[in-house]
């Protein structure tokens, strides 16, 4: 079992949300990097090409920043699991539980979560994305 502490990047323009996710992910044994914009996230990704997980907000400065960033991440590393979080699922129609096959290929994301993301929910989702589950 790989016991190395894993690293997650959280991208969101809401400072409170960044703080909450940091606390939650630290409890799940992740080292957490935070970015408040696509620009900041891109800079962090440039220096850390082997992140173990990225959580990215859909709507930041632009409506579709999250998708754009997801594509960028995949170009850097095809295997980083990406979870997209959003509070506008119902308004935008981006409402699906799991992202599979074609959708994954197209959207470049592994999972969409509705905000607010609860600790238990995050834990469950990370467990289903087996490859990102940190060593226990």
């Amino acid at each position: 079992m790989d016991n190395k502490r894993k690293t997650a990047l959280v991208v969101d323009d809401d400072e409170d949300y960044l703080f909450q996710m940091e606390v939650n992910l630290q409890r799940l044994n992740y080292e957490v990097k935070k970015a408040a914009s696509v620009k900041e996230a891109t800079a962090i990704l440039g220096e850390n090409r082997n992140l173990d997980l990225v959580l990215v907000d859909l709507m930041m400065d632009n409506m579709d920043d999250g998708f754009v960033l997801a594509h960028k991440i995949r170009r850097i590393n095809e295997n980083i699991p990406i979870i997209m979080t959003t509070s506008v699922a119902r308004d935008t129609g981006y409402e699906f539980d799991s992202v599979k096959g074609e959708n994954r290929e197209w959207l470049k994301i592994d999972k969409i979560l509705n905000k607010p993301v609860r600790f238990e929910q995050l834990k469950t989702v990370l467990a289903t994305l087996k490859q990102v589950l940190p060593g226990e």
Partner: protein
Amino acid sequence: MFKNRICKIAVVDDEEGIRLGSKSILEAFEVKVDEDKESLNFQIDEFSDKNSFVNNLEKEDDPDLVLLDCKLPDGNGIDILEEYLSDKDDIIVIIITAYATVENAVKTTKRGAFDFLAKPFTPDQLRHSVRKAVNHLYLKRKAAQLEKKQKSIRFEFLSVLAHELKSPINAVEGYLDLMENEILGDKINKYSKIIGNCTDRIGGMRKLIMDLLDLTRIESGQKKREVTRIDAAAILRKAMANFKLSAEKNKVELEIKAPDKLEINGDEGELMIIYNNLISNAIKYNRENGRVTAKLSKSEQGMEIEVEDTGIGLKEEDQKRLFQEFTRIKNEKTRNIQGSGLGLSIVRKITDLYQGTIEVNSKYGKGTVLKIKLNSSY
């Protein structure tokens, strides 16, 4: 509104004379709509009985106008009106009949006919009736178009509003989840930062709701205006005093440059909203150890208020967006500043009430001056 500026007319009458006469009159006819800005021509399709008209109605594009004879060999104009045209709001119908009785007129109008033309009619009567009908249809379509546009603007506004309201709810819910999981242990005092953050977000949400109410009250004219003789200088001092604490917290110095007294005709509440928004922005978007200067002076028309800060300033492209609803200029420097994004929309709406003007003068990284002139002699 009319495809290729052509109004399609269906003439439904078993008398060939009526059909051909109407066709030749109307094909040479032109109607001006939209305050004479647009002219319409006519394309005439003839139908000699109910069947051919109804079949065509099912196959082809709907006509804009129908000249409908009451008495057809295979049916009755009133039945056609009721069965086939009553649910088509976008078609306007003129009934033609030889039996020009009041009873008939009432009957057909009740079923949705716009006008009533008695046989035999003169070319002028026909033209007059068609002109009236087309203008009516034009206005109706224009109103529908406008309503659709307003609905879509409203939807856009509500979508953004919903997003703005959901963010603080999500933040507070997220914090409650952390507390429920006793992330910082079981002592409540460990959570004071978290509780403080929740309070801030709820405060921001309350401000958004208040601003929204102000905005809609002003927009709808529901807000009662109390225009009296008021002292703009005294109100400014009061407003600045209210911001003393927040200025101290942000390490910003406040300065007033105003005469002892400056009387104008105005509404104290409205003036207070303007001051509050300008001062609060100047404090929020300032730098540490910065300064906010509020200058008030008399002008020819009324008064001039200028609020200057030494803050982060605006990029040129952002200045244009400043007065749009929910515009919050997002960048590294403003990300952690709370705001409803409605403040300056409200200020602009109030300024409009005074036939006033707003000037923005800003240098990115240096600071912003907002100058508002109010006309108080109206």
